[in-house]
């Protein structure tokens, strides 16, 4: 039944996901056109100003404004794309679980964990896709915009240099350490799923407060965030106190990545179990 639930969850969410990706692609193109226009036409703009004609100056100013506006729009769309997808998924979860639509969801002959997991898996997948889209948009924008000014070969060389500097600063020689890389990648992949377990779990646990279920959902979500933050601070303090070797920073990073991973997964398991308890034993649909 998990497969069937995932199939229908996919059918219901793909339009929103593809819509966000299209918006990101369109914004990237627009941002690139704006940036390209500003960079490649800067000399011509100056020429327009030099004529001293008010009409030409106004036209030049308008073109510059359009360029700036398109870059601004690009930034805004990218900033809100992941946020929008997350909000959409949470609202959809609440609607299908605890509104009138929940009457159908909760009378299906399936286990509660299958319903919860299907939503986390499909939603998490969409968040990963949107994250990748976000990275691709930024990367594409930089390549396209900077490429017009610098030339592709120069740009790629510059990026390699930045990459080398980044790895040296962050990891020292640790980039060769497969386990650290594995931990980082694992954390990046698991993060969208963990975010959804926390969010879905919060609004499920919020159902225990009959008078203010949605409000309590927010309270639980905030509470989880605070607990996670405190646990991370404590963990980091323990790590700093316990490390005294020569490659302290590299070792700190290594332990920090795995520590955060274990903490987040542990917390997610706790939230999941509590959510299952609510769905199985305390469900009270209005």
């Amino acid at each position, binding site marked *: 039944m998990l497969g069937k639930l995932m199939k229908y969850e996919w059918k219901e969410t793909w339009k929103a996901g593809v819509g966000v990706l299209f918006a990101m692609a369109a914004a990237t193109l627009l941002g690139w056109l704006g940036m390209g226009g500003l960079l490649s036409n800067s000399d011509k703009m100056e020429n327009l100003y030099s004529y001293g004609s008010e009409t030409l100056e106004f036209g030049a100013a308008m073109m510059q404004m359009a360029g700036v506006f398109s870059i601004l729009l690009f930034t805004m769309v990218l900033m809100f794309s992941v946020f929008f997808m997350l909000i959409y998924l949470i609202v959809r979860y609440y609607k299908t679980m605890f509104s009138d639509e929940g009457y159908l969801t909760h009378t299906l002959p399936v286990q509660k964990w299958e319903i919860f997991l299907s939503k986390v898996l499909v939603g998490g997948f969409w968040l990963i896709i949107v994250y990748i889209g976000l990275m691709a948009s930024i990367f594409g924008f930089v390549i396209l915009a900077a490429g017009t000014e610098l030339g592709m070969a120069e740009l790629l060389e510059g990026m390699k240099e930045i990459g080398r500097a980044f790895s040296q600063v962050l990891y020292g020689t640790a980039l060769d350490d497969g386990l650290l890389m594995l931990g980082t990648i694992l954390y990046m992949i698991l993060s969208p799923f963990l975010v959804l377990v926390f969010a879905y779990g919060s609004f499920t646990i919020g159902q225990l407060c009959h008078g203010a279920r949605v409000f309590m959902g927010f309270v639980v979500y905030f509470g989880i965030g605070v607990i996670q933050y405190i646990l991370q601070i404590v963990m980091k303090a323990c790590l700093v106190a316990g490390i005294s070797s020569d490659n302290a920073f590299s070792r700190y990073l290594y332990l920090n990545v795995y520590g955060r991973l274990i903490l987040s997964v542990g917390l997610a398991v706790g939230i999941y179990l509590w959510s299952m308890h609510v769905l199985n034993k305390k469900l009270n*649909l209005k």
Partner: protein
Amino acid sequence: MSDLVEIYGVSKSYTSRYAAVNNVSIKLPAGKIIGLLGPNGSGKTTMIKLMNGLLTPDQGIIKIGSVEVGPQTKSMVAYLPDKTYLAGNKRIRNILDYFADFYEDFSKEKALEMLSKLGIDPSARMDTLSKGNKEKVQLILVMCRKAKLYLLDEPIAGVDPAARDYILQTILTCYNPEASVIISTHLISDVEQVLDEVIFMKNGHLVLYTSAENIREQHGKSVDAYFREVFKC
């Protein structure tokens, strides 16, 4: 005849001061059409929601086909809520596919045939249908299952008399004769003709459980008239 529904000491409260269902125990047989009757706020909807797991009892046990309420019983129970629970943006055809995928006992062919008789286009979206047609679509989804227990919560409330006739006729012609149908309503005169047994509920308590025939014989009244007498304000 074996008991299809077994309810032992079930209570359910929404607030600490008021019990919507209060220590109800009852056993219901298979193969009957049972009216769950009572005035507004008597606990009918709560009782039905408890039977299909939308609510969890504060105390007591409910069994359907000797199994405690859970995923297994949900495959035996077909439930019609008292509200539209299908998303407005969904097309009827997609909803039929959904039911066919999740309920092995659902007949898509029968549902399409019934929709065709009503002149409802399966490619129509739910939010384009009238209230009466939405009710009919939901009823068709429920009655095209070969369930062991049909739980119909206020199936004829808020629809015109012609639609009421259609709904009652559909219930009578479509339901699996080995199954039981529990119809919750306060519009007794409309359903009286189809009922085998009746349950009266008042303030969360079970007041009476008997056959419709018994009421007519013992009290010399119709179920509707007797109901009015029992629940006189």
